[in-house]
């Protein structure tokens, strides 16, 4: 298996390099080559890889895709694209077609005019100094094969730079529209976000696939949060039951930053989110929130790592799951507190409700603490709906389905309450209510 994949990647990398032409001379290409070599030596994680024990993504990819096939040109119409945008959100809307940033389709809100938004290709070509300064700098742990794959083939995506001392009310929505109408699609989009000192902004990520062929997006996201900046980043995964999504999100915090990451998973064949937060500053706050509402045979896996490297910071993590039918959830949360990171407060919690006997959850919290003056806690719960609560609601005339919906909504409210962007909250609540009724 490994050998065959290696050959495929090698020949793809060869033709990628040939196509790049002069860009091969750019320092960024050195990073690609390093990543390619890492990919050749580790390969994609197989079933024996502890981090992917429950999530056999590589096997699924080999089964579902012809991995040596080239992606076609996208041929989506404006109507098709418009139909998949996140409506009702007042802000900027960036559109990516098969990962390629489309300026023509994107709409930038007036308050966002001073933000630098470049396609990744342009950033590599015209802003290479800045690009090299930030690109691939947040990687902190091991060699994730999927991250290596993305880095080796980095070409599509976006780089966003926010200047210092700016506060933006409205969010920037990143709409990734994938064309799987004619044949399969495999993409390696990359998002690089740099937030200047003391600035505040919110991002929303929305992946949508059109067409019935299998689609796989292997995303890498890097957020570099400069001193005292405040960032919220929200992923919404509701891309239908035929799509496979992998993401490596890497957040790097310097002093006094406040970063909140949200992951909402509602559908997909297989979804795997790696979230790595490096708290490399004092007085930081890192919030990691997740809600997965799964049914059918959807498989969703959240692996998070928060790495406290400096003293006096706080991290909060709360992931909640509601699993129905034959769905499967995986949660793995690691907290590292290094010796230098005294006075760290780190909290982690994962709560799950199983609605069916065939649904599965594997949850594993892990703490590694080398500092001796810290407050850390972690816990996970898995259960069913409370019969007493259900009976109470029904005894007041509320029908059973509605009562279940109310209780699950209440369970999810912990996460919704923390979600910024008012319109988004009602959008999410609607998804939950629709699903539960």
């Amino acid at each position, binding site marked *: 298996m490994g050998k065959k994949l290696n050959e495929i990647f090698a020949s793809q990398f060869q033709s990628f390099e040939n196509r790049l032409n002069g860009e091969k001379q750019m320092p960024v290409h050195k990073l690609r080559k390093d990543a390619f070599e890492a990919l050749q030596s580790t390969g994609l994680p197989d079933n024996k890889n502890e981090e992917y024990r429950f999530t056999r993504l590589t096997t699924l990819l080999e089964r579902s895709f012809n991995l040596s096939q080239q992606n076609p040109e996208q041929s989506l119409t404006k109507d098709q694209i418009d139909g998949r945008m996140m409506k009702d959100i007042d802000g900027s809307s960036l559109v990516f077609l098969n990962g390629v940033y489309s300026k023509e389709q994107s709409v930038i809100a007036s308050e966002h005019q001073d933000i630098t938004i470049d396609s990744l290709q342009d950033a590599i070509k015209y802003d290479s100094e800045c690009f090299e300064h930030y690109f691939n700098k947040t990687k902190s742990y091991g060699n994730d094969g999927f991250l290596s794959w993305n880095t080796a083939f980095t070409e599509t995506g976006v780089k966003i730079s926010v200047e210092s001392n700016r506060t933006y009310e409205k969010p920037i929505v990143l709409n990734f529209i994938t064309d799987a109408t004619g044949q399969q699609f495999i993409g390696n989009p990359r998002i690089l976000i740099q937030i200047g000192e003391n600035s505040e902004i919110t991002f929303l990520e929305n992946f949508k696939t059109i067409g019935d062929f299998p689609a796989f997006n292997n995303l890498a996201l890097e957020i570099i949060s400069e001193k005292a900046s405040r960032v919220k980043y929200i992923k919404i995964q509701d891309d239908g039951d035929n799509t496979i999504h992998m993401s490596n999100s890497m957040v790097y915090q310097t002093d006094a930053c406040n970063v909140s990451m949200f992951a909402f998973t509602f559908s997909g064949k297989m979804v795997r989110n790696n979230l790595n937060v490096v708290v490399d500053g004092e007085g930081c706050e890192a919030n990691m929130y997740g809600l997965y509402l799964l049914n059918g045979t959807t498989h969703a896996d959240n692996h998070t790592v928060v790495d406290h490297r400096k003293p006096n910071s706080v991290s909060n993590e709360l992931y909640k799951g509601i699993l129905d039918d034959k769905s499967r959830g995986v949660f793995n949360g690691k907290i590292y507190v290094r010796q230098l990171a005294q006075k760290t407060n780190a909290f982690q919690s994962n709560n799950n409700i199983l609605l069916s006997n065939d649904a599965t959850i594997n949850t594993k919290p892990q703490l590694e603490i080398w500092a001796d003056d810290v407050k850390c806690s972690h816990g996970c719960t898995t259960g069913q709906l*409370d*019969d*007493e*609560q259900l*009976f*109470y*609601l*029904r*005894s*007041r*005339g*509320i*029908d*059973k389905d*509605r*009562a279940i919906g*109310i*209780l699950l*909504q*209440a*369970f999810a*409210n*912990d996460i919704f309450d923390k979600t910024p962007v008012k319109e988004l909250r009602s959008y999410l609540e609607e998804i939950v209510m629709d699903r539960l009724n």
Partner: protein
Amino acid sequence: MLSIKNLRASIDGNEILKGINLEVKAGEVHAIMGPNGSGKSTLASVLAGREEYDVNSGTIEYLGRDLMEMNPEERAREGVFLAFQYPVEIPGVSTTNFLKTALNQIREHRGEERLDAVSFLTLMKEKMKLVELDQTLISRSLNEGFSGGEKKRNEIFQMAMLEPKLAILDETDSGLDIDALKIVANGVNKLKSSDNATIVVTHYQRLLDYIIPDFVHVLMNGKFVKSGGKELAYKLEELGYDWIKEEQALV
């Protein structure tokens, strides 16, 4: 309104109710008294439709319909209301939203229009006064962090909002101080009419000083062993249950 005939019910294979007979007519207040473990709460639970109890034999007819054929929400919509002995805390659900949903589902069932937000709030304000319930409690999560008294008052407030035909108060007096008891009893009395009936399940006679029953039934070991007027309650308060036990032993 309610006619129970030879009702036998069990939980986990243990028979708790061993042949209950009871007739309740509109406008009446019935008190069901008895020592701990006699089956009082089981009877209340069976009437409200709690699913963990099995009805082994007997019939319960409510407004001409077989009550056992109805699930808990149907019973509520047809006017059965259980004030819980231990009201459940539901974090994340506000009392307001919960009651709006309940009331509108009941109104829909009755073929009435849904209440708009303004009329609902007006109605709520009016009923809150009845049990002297504070506005801030209503906007909080249902019963979460409420004191014992607040929970019980919230039960009677819900009863006032839903206007049941048959209200069953399960040990509503337990855990109440005398002031709270008066408020709760006062609320119940104000809701009383010639069209509805109340069953008061209680361990002590105390509540019956404020909610005057037309009938008192003594439940022991899963059966009614004595029925009478309100004077029976006074006698129980004075003498306890032993004299009835002795009477029973003689039979």
